[in-house]
């Protein structure tokens, strides 16, 4: 059944003018998953990139139409799994907006802190993976050391390391772990002391700079701005961590959630861009139509534009900076 379709184009022949057409992916270490790029090369210079999608298309949008408003949140964790928390938040916000549920302050604070932690974790992974794409293996291990601290915090509170499913419409699934504040503070101290390390190893490294400078529209400043974003996240967490108000962690909700008839849209900023949820409701317990605006998809579309004319090694650099999560693109 599966081998009836011939999917990989036979590109064994050379293209016109001695161009070399290579299939990068679906299984290729640089594509961070199962992206298939048909790259046309002239020597080492890229002439054209055609991304082929669908290798991880799980029809999540269609699937959500058969799930209730409580259930559909958990699927969004599997889209952009590096910012699963933020995806969940976006969906929960939509439901809350649609039903006008009041969310207690405590839940709001915790949601923001966890989202920012997720963002840092995602960027840590980006840093490691980007360095790895450029051939440096060690920063990956240093970045994951700090990332592990975050996943520990997540595990304590949410019970999972990656796909949390902690946010429910109206608040949180259960209260934070008693050690939560202590651990977050410990993480902040550790992280601040290690940022210089990343700079020494990665952002200030002459090879890294020359690999990223002038590559596409994303340059060394972008690499640094990622670091700045992590610092901002740290600042947000610092402001909130001591002030988590007491009170309920979940607002009062009905047992069965029903969105009123109409169209709803919310958006949140995930680790790699704007994530939007658009729902058309017919008033039932499940969405009538749902559409996610995923950041990865728009990021990918820029790839051809920024890579034409650069070297094949640059492709890795620009794909690294785009920080693609393929299941987020294919959904």
């Amino acid at each position, binding site marked *: 059944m599966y081998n009836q379709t011939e999917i990989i184009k036979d590109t064994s022949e050379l293209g016109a003018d001695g161009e070399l057409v290579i299939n990068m992916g679906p299984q290729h*270490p640089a594509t961070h998953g199962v992206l298939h790029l048909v790259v046309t090369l002239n020597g080492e210079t890229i002439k054209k990139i055609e991304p082929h999608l669908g290798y991880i298309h799980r029809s999540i949008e269609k699937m959500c139409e058969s799930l209730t408003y409580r259930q559909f949140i958990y699927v969004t964790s599997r889209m952009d*799994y590096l910012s699963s928390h933020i995806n969940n938040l976006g969906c929960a916000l939509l439901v809350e907006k649609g039903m006008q549920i009041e969310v207690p302050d405590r839940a709001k604070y915790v949601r923001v802190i966890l989202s920012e932690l997720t963002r840092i974790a995602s960027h840590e992974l980006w840093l490691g993976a980007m360095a790895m794409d450029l051939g440096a293996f060690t920063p990956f291990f240093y970045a*994951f050391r700090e990332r*592990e601290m975050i996943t520990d915090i997540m595990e304590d509170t949410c019970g999972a*390391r990656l796909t949390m499913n902690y946010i429910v419409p109206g608040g949180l699934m259960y209260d934070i772990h008693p050690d939560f504040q202590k651990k977050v503070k410990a993480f902040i101290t550790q992280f601040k002391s290690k940022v210089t390390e990343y700079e020494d190893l990665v952002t200030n490294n002459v090879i890294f700079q020359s690999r990223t400078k002038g590559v596409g529209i994303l340059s060394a400043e972008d690499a640094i701005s990622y670091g700045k974003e992590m610092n901002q996240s740290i600042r947000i967490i610092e402001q909130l961590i001591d002030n988590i108000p007491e009170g309920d962690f979940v607002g009062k909700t009905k047992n069965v959630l029903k969105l009123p008839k109409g169209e709803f849209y919310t958006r949140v900023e995930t680790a790699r861009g704007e994530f939007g949820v658009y729902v058309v409701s017919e008033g039932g317990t499940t969405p009538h139509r749902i559409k996610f605006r995923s950041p990865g998809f728009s990021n990918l579309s820029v790839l051809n534009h920024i890579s034409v004319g650069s070297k094949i090694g640059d492709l890795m650099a620009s794909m690294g900076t785009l920080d693609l999560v393929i299941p987020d693109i294919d959904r």
Partner: protein
Amino acid sequence: MELKEKIAGNEPFPGIVHDTPGGGIVVSTFDSIINWARSNSLWPLSFATSCCGIEMMSTASAKYDFSRFGFEVARASPRQADVIIIAGTIVNKMAPVLKRLYDQMADPKYVIAMGACAISGGPFFYNTYSVVKGADHIIPVDVYIPGCPPRPEALLHSLISLQEKIKLGMTREQIRGEFKG
């Protein structure tokens, strides 16, 4: 359970040491030496489709460090890999690619299905038209680890189980070889 106990103690080099004056002689069979070598040198193919791939990276990271078992030589080329860890969902479009990757690997080769998606389709078992309901519909799987995604320790546990399976002569190839012989 019995597997768990076996895993707890990592056997050294297979064989019996006979003490003789002035030293010792290790007596071992050729088969068990080969199995020992194969089980201790499982080079994974760097293949990941979704979330479980991140946990695979975590397993490689310093805290869990699967290099302690000698698994760290992740090969990008299927020709040089021994074990393919299916980390993530396999959709219908990916299925022939996965089959091809598996065919490209040199014998002996092992397969670990990591996470609910690879075992059965997991979250996408119902309601989706595009997901393969279990990677074992495409290629034979040696070890299954449930979880969504499984912890890094769980992946290590499955790798140790695979080692144990190889040492006990329970993999598909070994069993097939016995029938032939």
